[in-house]
């Protein structure tokens, strides 16, 4: 087989790259060893959001509807039905991608790929046959996998990673989450809402340590409300099989402690998938963290070979992979495209949600920038009260001299959707006034960004502005 561009991996980087290539008239082949859509669609973003939404709905029905005068006597959870609802969503989306690729005349080969040379790849198809593909360009979009801890071998039964945690047969009575990053907390909080007793073990001195402290405090409040135990500064050491359960031995600042639960969920981070492709033979260079080194055109150290998404460096986020996929495709088509984005947003589906675009307060300070930081609370917005979602605030960071918007972090309801306005503002090089002077519809959550921008100028209407 001979093809212009081979894309290894059909995740949010790879399939987007292939479609963009097809749009630009370049013949592309996607090689996928599992399901189209990658981790994101099959065992990551999408299924976890389904479980999180279901858990939130269940929790509200049980604990919060009463605030609005709605009485439901003892709502019941059919956990297997919830999981199968989630599975239907991922199947639907995955076949949708198959349809898009087909409609764009992109071929798909199911199997694993291994480089023979910089212009040839061998695919061991799922069917067992070996196919050799000659190509001019290749985009490596193999993504990442959960980091395994040697002391905690994942069996997807008692010891699970994020994939296993989304495919449990029955609702666990208890679960220990090792790693208080966004994946561990999102699912930990969701399971807590469904009724699972959650213990979070985190090595750092705070969960979500990448975010500013004041942001994390809002989530910690809810963690407490959900009766989740958080052991910070704690190292998971070993485990013991305790019959139907598992016991974690960990070292807390107060000494060694044992915690027993139905499952141990390991979520300490992800690592790039660079093995098994014979990359060494091509001389494709990796950086110290094991990511494939790429330039701003996503070109690796070997000409004609590109890398995008998780395998090509931080942040390991689907939307970054998709953007890079488009750029790599355009570079292959001879366009003058480069990865020159001004921001890559991050969203966390904890309760409440977090959305961040541009710089955080601590990043801006670390850069020594002269900034104006302001906050605006959800509780001052009508819509937040009418939906019973008053926790959280918007943090607005601007250049103190020029008033350019440098960063916006939202912690609160719908933060994951609201952050898009901040993304556009930063990408456009907006000034604080640009947001403050734009009429936002009332009564919506969206007003909070306008108010926060006004607050940054000392002119918020629905808040008393600090005196300078």
């Amino acid at each position, binding site marked *: 087989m001979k093809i*212009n561009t081979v894309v290894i991996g059909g995740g949010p980087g790879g399939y987007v790259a292939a479609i963009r290539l097809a749009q630009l*008239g*370049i013949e592309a082949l996607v090689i996928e060893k599992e399901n189209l859509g990658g981790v994101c669609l099959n065992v990551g973003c999408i299924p976890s959001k389904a479980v999180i939404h279901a858990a939130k709905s269940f929790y509200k029905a049980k604990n919060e509807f009463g605030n609005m005068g709605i009485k439901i006597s003892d709502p019941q959870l059919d956990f297997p039905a919830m999981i199968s609802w989630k599975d239907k969503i991922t199947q639907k989306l995955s076949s949708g991608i198959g349809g898009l690729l087909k409609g764009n005349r992109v071929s798909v080969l199911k199997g694993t790929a291994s480089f023979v040379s910089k212009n040839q790849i061998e695919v061991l198809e799922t069917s067992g046959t070996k196919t050799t593909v000659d190509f001019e360009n290749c985009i490596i979009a193999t993504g990442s996998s959960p980091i395994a801890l040697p002391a905690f071998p994942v069996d997807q039964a008692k010891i699970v990673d994020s994939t296993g945690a989304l495919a449990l047969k029955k609702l666990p009575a208890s679960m220990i989450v090792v790693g208080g990053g966004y994946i561990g907390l999102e699912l930990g909080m969701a399971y807590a809402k469904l009724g699972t007793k959650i213990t979070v073990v985190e090595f750092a001195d705070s969960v979500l340590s990448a975010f500013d402290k004041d942001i994390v405090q809002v989530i910690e409040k809810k963690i407490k409300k959900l009766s989740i135990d958080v052991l910070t500064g704690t190292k998971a050491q070993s485990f013991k099989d305790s019959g139907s359960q598992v016991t974690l031995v960990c070292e807390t600042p107060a000494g060694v402690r044992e915690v027993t639960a139905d499952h141990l969920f390991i979520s300490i981070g992800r690592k790039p998938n660079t093995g098994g492709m014979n990359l060494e033979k091509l*001389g494709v*260079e990796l950086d110290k963290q094991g990511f494939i*080194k790429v*330039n701003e*055109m996503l*070109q690796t*150290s*070997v*000409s004609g070979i590109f890398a995008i998404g998780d395998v090509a460096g931080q942040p390991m986020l689907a939307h970054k992979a998709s953007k890079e996929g488009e750029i790599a495709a355009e570079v292959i088509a*001879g366009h*003058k*495209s*480069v990865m*020159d*984005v*001004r921001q890559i947003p991050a969203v966390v589906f904890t309760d409440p949600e977090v959305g961040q675009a541009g710089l955080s307060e601590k990043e801006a300070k670390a*850069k020594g*920038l*002269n900034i104006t930081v302001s906050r605006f609370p959800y509780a001052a917005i009508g819509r937040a009260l009418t939906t019973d979602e008053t926790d959280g605030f918007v943090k607005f960071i601007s*250049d103190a001299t*020029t*008033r*350019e918007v*440098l960063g916006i972090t939202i912690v609160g309801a719908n933060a994951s959707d609201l952050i898009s306005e901040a993304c556009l503002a930063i*990408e*456009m*090089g907006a*000034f604080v006034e640009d947001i403050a002077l734009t009429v936002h519809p009332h009564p919506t959550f969206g007003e909070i960004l306008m108010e926060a921008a006004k607050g940054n100028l000392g002119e918020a209407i629905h808040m008393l502005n600090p005196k300078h």
Partner: protein
Amino acid sequence: MSIFTVLLPDIGEGVVEGEVIKWLKNVGDALAQDEPVVQIMTDKATVELPAVKPGKLAKQHIAEGKIAEKDKPLYDIELAAGVSAPQDSHGHKEAPKQEAQVSEKPQATKATASAPVLSATGKALATPATRKLARDLGIDINQVPGTGKGGRVTKEDLEGFLSGESDSAPVSSEARSGNLPAVTMSKTPVFVYEGDERIPLRGLRKVIAERLVESKTIVPHFAYFEEVDMTELKKLRNELKPLAEEAGAKLTYLPFFMKALTLAIKKFPIINSSIDLGTNEIVVHKKIHIGMATATKDGLIVPVIRDADQKSLIQLANDSQGIAQKTRDGKASSDELKGSTISITNIGSIGGLGATPIINYPEACILGMYKIQDRPVVRDGQIVIRSMMNISFCFDHRIVDGANGAEFCNYFIGLLNNPGRLILGS
């Protein structure tokens, strides 16, 4: 371990930039002193640049297919232990800092525009669409003074930047064409069919494309056809051929045509000229340097026979064959491939009765030579068989009018019809 930034050195008189054709070393590769690091194509010659110091290739500043500018960073060497940075003009000890670049920026002409305003993150204030336009136009947007609110760079600023001050501005070669209209390729979408092959337009092919678009866009061409009676010239050449061979030269018809061209130019000097758009003057060249269109495996290249009017037929024969071979072998230097004042394209050896060649800009004239055929012609009321060759001239009509061109051509073919006049020199 110190990092040494190597700048694109002077690789030929008047060469200000070159396209990076191929990196011969990848980042991280060890470099021995004088080991070739990168292939650069300037004008029409491709050169390999050797490592100025031993060490390790730390960074490639210019991607393959992109333009490297003279005295701008080309690559970084992580110097081997104990090696000191050279103190000549080929490198800086450290890459220039942002402030240094900003202070070198051109002063804007518009009253409202001032120094480029950069965001706290060190980048120009501009929307994603404007940034994309800048990339497409080959402009470093961080160098563009913005006229928008707070120094924002607008699409209009980019256009103004291109048309206004492209001499000193950091604009890539695609965008740089003096005060001339920017040369752009057609924007009509390409039809794509199954089985189409895509070949990147780069290297020599790209230069050819750009040069010819430039010529056809700027120069109002007009073509003029004539025929030369080669019968006498054929006889003369057959007589001189063995003598030339004794002197070590292979005598083709080309040297005779060159000779005739130089004599005709002496009579009609305006043919050997160029328009200088910068000063609005016609520059009439006293030197006669003949460009000779030469087919190579990579495409058309035009090496130059210098001072053709000062050379004998034997010298012209030797020079044209020598330089053609050198060009085909890819060994001609950049200086040997530029500076012609008039050009000849000879496809007669392949075939063809006529064509309208494109002027080798900024020249004013190109001569096309075609196949020699025995044809029935009328001489003194009788049909006789003579050896005939069609020729065509394409002229720049801004300089040469139809009548001038015709007179020049008449004189030119007169010399060839009676080749004795070539020896006479008039």
